[in-house]
């Protein structure tokens, strides 16, 4: 029973990583860039949701929608102003710009919302499920987070597989030049990717802060790195991979804290990452790309 409880805790934090990783992987797969500002977009989403519920007194669902709208606009703006001018140059240049954007968002959030942490009120209102006289507890957040991340995963898979826009995205991801020759508007497609990725970030922000209630300007950075790790474990660019990687990372983290050492759990998590990459150099579900000569 005890093991089961830790497993559930692991899945709980893992599904939060998973939903952040989905955004990472989506942007990486199509725009081919590591968007290190993704974690900070999550933070902005959580702040927007917090303000809408706590200061305007509107229901949670409205706050999520508001956060999604703001983050989508923010994502498109960032892409247009900071990333698009660098398209076609070194991917490192874009990486550094993304870091600049990340610094900017964190400091802007501090100026707007102050340094004092906010206590995020969970959007989940129903009571936790308790089994075996409280020896096993499943909180509402776990159920909602897992449900939402599965929903998002399926939605994204269908979107990229079936719709016109989604197919265009896959084409751009495979070969940007060829896609352009086929009449696909590459810029528009990439903007669309950022819009979707940022809307997902807003949802992730709300779910992250429902699970871990402290909200401050640096809230997004550590889960951001964890989620990036998760995306790599699963195979960056792969949508089911992000989901798998996130859950796996959460479980490894929780179990190493419980059964090995709380002090060395970071080291253990990253050591597992390295082991996985040694066995599968492109992650668990990543595609092995044949290099052309």
């Amino acid at each position, binding site marked *: 029973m005890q093991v089961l409880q830790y497993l559930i*805790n692991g899945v709980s934090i893992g599904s939060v990583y998973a939903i952040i990783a989905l955004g990472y992987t989506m942007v990486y797969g199509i725009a081919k860039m590591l968007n290190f500002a993704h974690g900070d977009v999550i933070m902005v989403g959580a702040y927007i949701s917090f303000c809408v519920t706590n200061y305007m007194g509107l229901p949670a669902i409205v706050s999520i929608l508001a956060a999604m709208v703001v983050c989508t606009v923010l994502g498109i703006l960032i892409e247009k102003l900071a990333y698009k001018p660098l398209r076609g140059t070194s991917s490192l240049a874009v990486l550094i710009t993304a870091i600049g954007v990340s610094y900017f968002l964190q400091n802007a959030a501090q100026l707007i919302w102050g340094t004092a942490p906010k206590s995020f009120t969970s959007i989940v209102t129903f009571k*936790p499920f308790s089994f075996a006289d409280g020896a096993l507890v499943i909180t509402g957040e776990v159920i909602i987070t897992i449900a939402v991340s599965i929903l998002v995963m399926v939605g994204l898979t269908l979107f990229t597989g079936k719709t016109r826009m989604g197919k265009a995205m896959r084409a751009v991801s495979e070969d940007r030049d060829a896609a352009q020759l086929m009449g696909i508007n590459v810029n528009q497609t990439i903007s669309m990717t950022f819009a979707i990725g940022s809307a997902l970030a807003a949802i992730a922000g709300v779910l992250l802060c429902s699970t871990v209630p402290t909200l401050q300007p640096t809230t997004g950075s550590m889960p951001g790195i964890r989620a990036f790790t998760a995306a790599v474990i699963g195979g960056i660019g792969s949508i089911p991979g992000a989901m798998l990687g996130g859950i796996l990372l959460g479980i490894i983290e929780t179990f190493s*804290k419980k059964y090995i050492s*709380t002090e060395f*759990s*970071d080291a253990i998590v990253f050591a597992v990452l390295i082991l996985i990459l040694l066995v599968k150099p492109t992650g668990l579900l990543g595609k092995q790309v044949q290099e052309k000569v």
Partner: protein
Amino acid sequence: MKKFFALMMAAMMVVAMFAGCGNAEADAGTIKIGMTGPLTGGAAVYGTAVEAGMKIAVEEINAAAGEDGLKIEFKSQDDEHDAEKALNAYNTLKDWGMQFFAGAVTTAPCLSIAPSAVEDQIFMMTPSGSSEKIANSGSNIFQMCFTDPNQGANAAVLVSEKNLGTNIGIIYDSSDDYSKGLMQGFKDKAAELGLNIVCETSFTNANSSDLSTQVTQCKDEGCDFVFLPFYATEAAQVLTYANKIGYEPTFFGCDGMDGVLTSDGFNTDLAEGLILMTPFNPDAPETQDFVAKYQAMMNDVVPNQFAADGYDVIYAIYDACVATGIDGATPAADACAKLEEYFATYSFDGLTGTGMTWDASGMISKIPAAVIIENGKYVAF
């Protein structure tokens, strides 16, 4: 592009150099107090609180000083909670002509600045750097808060005296010296007093975003009392998660946890029955004036003990200056020697306690106070 860079570099160099040369004239009527603290980044909440508390004290003093009284010129610098940046910030203040150093806020920056302050013979009093190593760095380094092991020991004594629990659990932050110092002090004293510690578990700042495992561990071990020597941010997480899984032991925190009630949006029901050791009570009548001023300055945020410590540091230094006849023209080293002597017999009353005294190493002695949260308010425990 290379030219652009070269030009930019030249410009930067010039700026940096002149920034260093701006030694202002010393004005006898104004003493210069400098402060460093994390004003940006993850620890910014503590730095900005101390800074605001100090600014309030400075405003009060300058308003009361009138035309001819001794005034204070105050300057704060960001150290980003980083030992290296802290030294840069301190040097910047030195170039400005600082006579007294009222920092740093967090321990690591304090430890990196202290040897320089000893070398320069600048009087240093940290509002909230709580490691014993700080005061031990030199005879001119003073602390306004308890040292960690002392506070941990005080907590254990309180637990034993009031019989707060039989199965004791500890969750601490193993990557944080504050938390570790408290835990060690608590554990040592608990062993001496025969308290029964059944569960000891930790987290690090890199994995503090999920504390469910640690709370579950305490629950599994049947702890009816859990000692939480860390900051409000993580405490809110522990309380929230414990509530979710229906776990209700007595939670006990330290001064770093002050502010847990007032964080924006926090459901204060969760903290009901929480006991914490804090020298500052924002609900007490004697602190209301300060609380009102702080809220006016900081967008209605309720001050915590960091702000109050900052406020006290400024008053302690200022009152001592007035008593020893130090003014703005006194060189920093002379002022330092005078204050060092004066602090040996000094008894100071402030927001965080009355009759505070300092020992030869610069550590403070004041009465430890604890509060319990009842109906969302601090009540003396």
